[in-house]
């Protein structure tokens, strides 16, 4: 028997082509991330769809980190649940990593030091490769030993899973373009792993890859990069932010793209980025810039949203455009800073003191992060109010396979109702809070517009339609009612929900939003196979379009799938739509990991089964 391959499994080893889950267990700071990315992208280059997810600690070096790659020829991009092949490179988490493998699965490990049988499982196939020994022999420099160990295991996996080595080699050549002397050593390490596996192990194993044509023109990108790019396309010129995981890379992406696309020939910048002293200052700068006619945004997460609460109330009441990207993480307080949740829905929707309601956009993947990231600026200026783009860590920080970005060159920024010097000069009536058009949206002027007309004093305290200070009740009520009318107008401007009908008429429906989409689609297919037919509605924005309420009314029962404990969107829906709470059954996943198709399917199937149990009737009893 070849060294390291011990087929003691009592359970039949898993066999699948282009349909399995690989999970890498690593130590952070060990350089594993780029090797794992290389593995993932190699599969994509073979034309096979993947979904990859980083599960990482709030730490720079030394703590456990995981990278999960879902291979799905069928194109399922959510998490499936379960692991078929564990690449167990971290002794700290060995036991839980081994335990997580599906029966019949595989365990890849460094066999330099022999492991007692008690640390393995009889129902999975262990695959030992003496990585450390190989590196110690091949390299003298400790750093090289560490880095190339990662590439060697990618090489071994390449042989075990029957991957196309040229796809990986090409990626290495692209990655190190410009640092050409690194190309050959990486190619050599890759080959070393492949050669060893082919010589010593039975390759391929039951899990295999086969070249396909299922990726198409899709791109593989993370939501923060997409949203940052969307802000550039959306015409944002001012970014004020404060570093906070998981939103930091959004502001950094904006900076990178703005530098690339907005540097004038003379070297000056058509944008300004300030790393503020805190989130209060970030949002203050955004509001100051928005007041003065620039498109401005900040990127933050839950704790930052809390700090911005006072200012966002001012922006709502003073009617100042602002865009806030909230890359949600698990709270409350610092919560789990590197874990995902959809847990800021309620706090963002009603952020601040007094009566406030805000526009929320709910992107499902990086493609929508880009489009909504750009659209948010039009909406904010059209509605003269803060607009939240609600990403989460799963979308924001993981690479997703999604439709390529597109842009219509005839599109122009919608700057909203801004009165110009010419209009003022022509005698057009200006009242800052005057509802001229009946849509609740007043006209504004930018500072410095006209020498004698159109200036006004912006304040968070009550004022009349002409921006004059007043504490008169009727004037306050008049203004608050107009703000409600404006919110009603917003319903028609925000992205509409997307409905998918079941193949058969369905009495039950399911509502979901954001990063849940991918797992939800897969769960819907599986539920349908099990005979559970559900109409599905993906909500894309708050305020809710009438179609959302109509969907709830049309169905006897509606499941609402969310990634938080308190069913926050359900609360919003029940409150804003005046819906009987009993009609909406929450399905909640909030352990900080991205939701899986398996979780959704199980939760809904159990509930449906419970509802359809017919009570036994006593024999002979009249019906």
């Amino acid at each position: 028997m070849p060294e390291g391959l011990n087929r003691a499994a009592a359970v039949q080893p898993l066999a699948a082509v282009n349909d399995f889950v690989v999970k890498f267990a690593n130590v952070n700071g060990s350089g594993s991330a780029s090797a794992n990315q290389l593995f993932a992208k190699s599969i994509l280059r073979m034309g096979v769809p993947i979904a990859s997810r980083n599960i990482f600690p709030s730490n720079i070096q030394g703590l456990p980190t995981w990278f999960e790659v879902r291979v799905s020829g069928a194109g399922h991009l959510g998490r499936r649940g379960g692991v078929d092949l564990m690449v167990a490179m971290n002794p700290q988490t060995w036991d839980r990593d081994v335990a997580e493998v599906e029966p019949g699965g595989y365990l890849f490990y460094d066999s330099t030091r022999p492991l007692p049988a008690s640390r393995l499982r009889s129902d999975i196939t262990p695959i030992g490769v003496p990585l450390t020994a190989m590196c110690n022999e091949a390299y003298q420099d400790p750093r090289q030993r560490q880095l190339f160990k990662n590439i060697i295991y990618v090489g071994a996996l390449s042989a075990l899973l029957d991957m196309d080595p040229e796809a990986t080699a090409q990626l290495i050549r692209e990655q190190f373009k410009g640092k050409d002397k690194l190309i050959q050593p990486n190619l050599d390490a890759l080959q070393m792993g492949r050669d060893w596996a082919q010589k010593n192990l039975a390759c391929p194993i039951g899990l295999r890859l086969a070249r396909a044509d299922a990726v198409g023109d899709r791109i593989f990108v993370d939501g923060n990069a997409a949203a940052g790019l969307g802000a550039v396309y959306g015409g944002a010129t001012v970014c004020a932010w404060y570093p906070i995981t998981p939103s930091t890379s959004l502001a950094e992406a904006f900076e990178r793209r703005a530098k690339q696309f907005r540097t004038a020939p003379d070297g000056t910048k058509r944008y300004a980025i300030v790393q503020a002293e805190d989130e209060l200052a970030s949002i203050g700068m955004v509001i100051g810039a928005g007041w003065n006619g620039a498109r401005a945004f900040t990127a933050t997460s839950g704790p930052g949203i809390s700090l911005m609460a006072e200012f966002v109330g001012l922006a709502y009441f003073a009617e100042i455009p602002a865009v806030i990207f909230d890359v949600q993480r698990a709270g409350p307080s610092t919560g789990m800073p590197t874990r995902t949740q959809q847990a800021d829905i309620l706090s963002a929707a009603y952020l601040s003191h007094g009566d406030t309601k805000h526009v929320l956009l709910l992107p499902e993947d990086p493609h929508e992060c880009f489009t909504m990231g750009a659209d948010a600026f039009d909406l904010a200026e059209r509605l003269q109010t803060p607009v939240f783009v609600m990403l989460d860590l799963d979308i924001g920080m993981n690479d997703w396979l999604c439709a390529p970005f597109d842009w219509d060159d005839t599109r122009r920024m919608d700057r909203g109702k801004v009165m110009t010097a010419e209009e003022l000069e022509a005698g057009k009536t200006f009242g800052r809070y005057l509802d001229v058009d009946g849509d609740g949206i007043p006209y504004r002027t930018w500072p410095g517009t006209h020498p004698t007309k159109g200036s006004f004093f912006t304040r968070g305290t009550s004022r009349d339609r002409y921006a004059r200070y007043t504490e008169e009740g009727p004037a306050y009520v008049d203004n608050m009612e107009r703000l409600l009318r404006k919110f009603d107008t917003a319903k028609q401007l925000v992205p509409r929900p997307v409905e998918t009908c079941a193949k058969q008429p369905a009495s039950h429906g399911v509502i979901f939003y954001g990063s849940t989409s991918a797992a939800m689609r897969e769960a819907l297919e599986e539920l349908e196979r099990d005979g559970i037919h559900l109409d599905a509605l993906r909500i894309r924005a708050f305020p809710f379009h009438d179609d959302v309420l109509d969907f709830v009314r049309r169905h006897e029962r509606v499941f609402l799938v969310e990634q938080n404990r308190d069913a926050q969107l359900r609360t919003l829906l029940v409150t804003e739509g005046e819906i009987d709470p009993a009609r909406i059954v929450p399905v909640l996943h909030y352990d900080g990991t991205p939701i899986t198709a398996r979780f959704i399917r199980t939760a809904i199937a159990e509930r449906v089964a419970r509802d359809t149990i017919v009570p036994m009737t006593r024999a002979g009893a009249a019906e």
Partner: protein
Amino acid sequence: MTFLPKPKLHHPLLATNALGLTRRDYEGAISTLCAGCGHDSISAAIVQACFELELPPHRIAKLSGIGCSSKTPTYFLGAAHGFNSVHGRMPSVLTGANLANRDLVYLGVSGDGDSASIGLGQFAHSIRRGVNMTYIVENNGVYGLTKGQFSATSDKGSKAKKGTINTDEPIDLVAMALQLGATFVGRSFSGDKTQLVPLIKAALLHPSAAFIDCISPCVAFNNHEGSTKSFDFVRAHNEAVNRLDVIVGRDRIEAEYEPGTAVDVTQHDGTVLRLRKLHPEHDPTDRVSAMNYLQERKAAGEIVTGLIFLDPDPADLHDHLGTSADPLNAMGDADLCPGAAMLERVNAAYR
């Protein structure tokens, strides 16, 4: 404190400036502060300074936080846009506004509670960033609008109206501004218009962060015996280091001074600040000596006023960021949107 509306009529013989505007064109709504409030004198000084500098009123943006001082932007420059923001956060709103349009003149008005207590962080960071603004703290050492609590600039040992003694160390915003790298630092007194008006003029012309701490007695809550921010106390302890003339191009003042008593500082835009020195040992262009001088005089129980420090050729936040000379808020689609073709190249890199 009056409820009479201001008459709109101007006296036909009121002096006009080069823009054809009278002093009245720089005024705002009638003040609702207490009669005799120091803040009203500062508003009047701002009106006078802008009139004399011939600034188009609508090209000034006036911003404030919350408190008595922050109410005052309503009372001057009625033709300018104003923003009464949130407590202690005027500096960030002003910074953002300045980023959006570098072509306006930014005037931030704040108080000692607004800047030294709740807003100390934003005060500090806006100064160290070198935001091009005039930042005036109307410093009365007391919370007026909430009726008489100590603020962070109240002197240790000073007495509240009801007799409480302040035991906390005071924050000296002038010393902080110097340490934080402000390129224009002055202190004045609302009761000394001849000193204050030229100081505001010089600050408005200064192309970076200009800070003025203006002691402004609160007649309702902090003008009694035992207060260190009362009219009487400040008059008795005021030590002006210099007298300032702001000489803009054509109206050059030709006066004779004793050698060594007047220093002309030419600014980047050609404006000359003539400092008539009252204390020969104070050098306003040397930050370290200015800091030392300030501390020495403070230890001697004096309140140093005048232009305490000046960097005649400073950089501002836009210089640091390398922003375009054109205002960001004036840029259109062609300037900002990279377009579909570029997006295709972006897509290709993500495959």
